[in-house]
């Protein structure tokens, strides 16, 4: 079956792809989203940790290597909505220093843009999809911007109980900005604080793509083709332009979809895999890869989890999986003596029974049963997300093994460097001090495997093809009608949860594409 040529084919219907689809469909473009998984609806989002695993990655595996393999399946998405269907919707933004890492600190990369270039898009995204929080309170750490459209979310004892400890530690905590509704917003209801966000919010209180950008894209005429696994980006004979994509449909039949513009929005590991697998005689190292940087500078955040038991019932089943409080107080890169990197501190979140069990992964048998009873009442936690510096050796490459469609599997190698390990340890130690000052009866650090959270890099932005894969909008330096979207284009990661920035950069990139359309199609 031959499909009609479209203006834009977007590979991946998650956070970044849905923004591009919405902006471009509203601009009158014929937009097609291809996604390798199912087309989830809100009614599929059963409130169960067990059933919630259906929205986690399936399909061709990414081979995971290195000293700190990425928790790929826990973090990624599967199907329409992508990882943003089950994300926690924490919406901190990057800070100005994150954009100037090389010039200010001699580390990593400078972004080709500044915080001021992105700031209007943070505000725009907040207006579009709804953010709850207190912008004024955050402005002790960041440049002023617009107020959030909704007041902060409710807090609960599992968050409030930590405030004494933070105050004693000199760490001011403010309401966390989240992509959730504290009040009704644009016809979407307010949150019920039932803590099932991480398996997908079916009521529309959390800003997942289905109820925001993707819904708007569909209304504007965008088509979503689920169960469509893209294996190659196609080019013209001269290698100067992309002409569409090759993919396998729901019946595993090979198809070709022609398009004027291709946007890769399949998350940080799959985008490089596709570029590398699209090599031609004109692009022998893969598309957009003259620099040899495609797949490199993969980054993740490390997470310092501190758990504590309190004497009182902290009602840890109440709230959301996003956090109630946040602080940028340890965001300056040298906040801890002798340690480099930003930390983003959070407190107050709902837990489910799997979280209770995982908070003491060493326990089993009767000790676990006894612990579960106590933890159900008295357990609360805090988390500090930590920055990792971009490292050339952290990379995605093609493996010799192939998937069901004959496409080489991706191999993702990731190791934290000594700075990251030192920062993680410093955050864990500080967490214990905060717990003690909060009056915890017992407190412990979640040590053992160093957790990875989020996946960034692999197709980083920069000023030219000598130092990067794309420009600040996500446009390939080498092929003007090939674009990349999502966290893969971040050249540094800061310590903030990335999705708010993904939305903002995608909005900026999509608007640029729409405004420059004539230059892309001629």
């Amino acid at each position, binding site marked *: 079956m031959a499909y009609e040529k479209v203006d834009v084919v977007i590979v991946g219907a998650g956070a970044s792809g849905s923004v591009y689809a919405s902006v471009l469909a509203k601009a009158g473009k014929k937009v097609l989203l291809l996604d390798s998984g199912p087309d989830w609806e809100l009614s599929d989002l059963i*409130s169960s940790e067990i059933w919630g695993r259906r929205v986690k990655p399936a399909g061709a595996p990414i081979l995971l290597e290195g000293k700190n393999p990425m928790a790929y399946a826990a973090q990624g998405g599967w199907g329409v909505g992508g990882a943003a269907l089950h994300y926690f919707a924490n919406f901190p933004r990057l800070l100005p220093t994150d954009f100037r890492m090389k010039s200010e600190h001699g580390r990593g990369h400078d972004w080709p843009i500044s915080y001021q270039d992105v700031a209007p898009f943070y505000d725009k995204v907040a207006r579009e999809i709804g953010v709850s929080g207190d912008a004024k309170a955050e402005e002790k750490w960041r440049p002023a911007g617009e107020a959030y459209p909704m007041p902060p979310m409710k807090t609960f004892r599992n968050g409030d109980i930590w405030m004494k400890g933070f105050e004693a530690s000199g760490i001011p905590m403010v309401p966390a900005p989240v992509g959730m509704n504290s009040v009704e917003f644009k016809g979407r209801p307010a949150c019920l604080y039932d803590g099932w966000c991480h398996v997908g919010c079916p009521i529309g209180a959390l800003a997942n793509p289905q109820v925001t950008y993707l819904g708007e894209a569909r209304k504007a005429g965008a088509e979503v083709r689920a169960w469509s696994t893209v294996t190659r980006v196609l080019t013209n004979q001269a290698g100067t332009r992309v002409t569409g994509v090759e993919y396998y449909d729901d019946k595993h039949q090979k198809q070709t979809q022609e398009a004027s513009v291709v946007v890769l929005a399949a998350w940080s590991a799959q985008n490089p895999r596709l570029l590398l697998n699209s090599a031609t005689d004109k692009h022998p190292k893969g598309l957009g890869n003259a620099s040899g940087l495609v797949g490199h500078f993969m980054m993740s955040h490390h997470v310092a989890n501190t758990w504590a038991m309190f004497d009182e019932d902290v009602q840890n089943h109440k709230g959301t999986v996003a956090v109630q409080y946040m602080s940028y107080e340890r965001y300056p890169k040298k906040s801890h003596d002798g340690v480099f990197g930003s930390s983003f501190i959070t407190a107050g979140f709902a837990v489910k029974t799997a979280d209770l069990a995982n908070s003491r992964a060493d326990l089993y048998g009767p000790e676990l049963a006894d612990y579960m009873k106590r933890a159900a009442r008295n357990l609360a936690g805090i988390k500090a997300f930590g920055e990792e510096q971009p490292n050339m050796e952290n990379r995605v490459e093609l493996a010799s093994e192939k998937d069901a469609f004959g496409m080489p599997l991706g191999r993702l190698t990731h190791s934290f460097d000594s700075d990251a390990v030192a920062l993680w340890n410093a955050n864990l130690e500080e967490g214990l001090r905060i717990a003690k000052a909060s009056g915890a009866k017992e407190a412990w650090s979640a040590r053992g495997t160093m957790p990875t959270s989020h996946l960034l890099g692999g197709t980083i932005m920069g000023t030219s093809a000598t130092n990067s894969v794309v420009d600040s909008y996500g446009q390939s330096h080498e092929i003007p009608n090939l674009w990349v979207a999502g966290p893969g284009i971040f050249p540094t990661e800061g310590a903030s949860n990335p999705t708010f920035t993904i939305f903002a950069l995608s909005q900026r990139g999509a608007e640029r594409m729409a405004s420059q359309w004539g230059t892309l199609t001629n």
Partner: protein
Amino acid sequence: MANIGRRGFVKGATLGVLAFTVGGVEVIMAPGEARARNVPFRLLDAHQAETLESLGETLVPQAREAGIAHYIDQQLSVPPHEALLQARIFNVRPPFADFYRTAIISVDESSRRMFGRDFAQLSATDQREFVGRMRQNKIEGWTGRPGAAVYGVLRADAVDVVYGTMEGYEALGIPYMAHIPPEKRW
């Protein structure tokens, strides 16, 4: 969004429980019920099922009665992208049956070396000691996936069947508060 309700949202999902085969007919029930009704296993043999039940019970009391072996067996019989096993989240590569098959072999080989008997035949005390060593990768001559990984996946399965259900929440006194409740309390 006017048709999206609040708590107690009328569920459109039809995938709330697991399908077991009884007398050639698919019957929807919870794993504990499948065990109580002695539903035949689809893939596991009797020894594998007994070993998984013993491991599950050692890891999380009541996992046997909650139907851990029936849960794993049923989940291994569906396509990997439909599987709800924690193995999926632990980045275990499909087919997941390979993981469980080799884990059982590793456990029994080590158990025979340490205690002269298969794991399921050990006393509760020896089973507990074995699992403790497996968790810390401290079993000499262990082959296959690391013991800590086997511990992590099987413990997670046992936590699922004992604590991940609506009954599990109820037993701990935690309000479940579903938006879309799983059918038949699963």
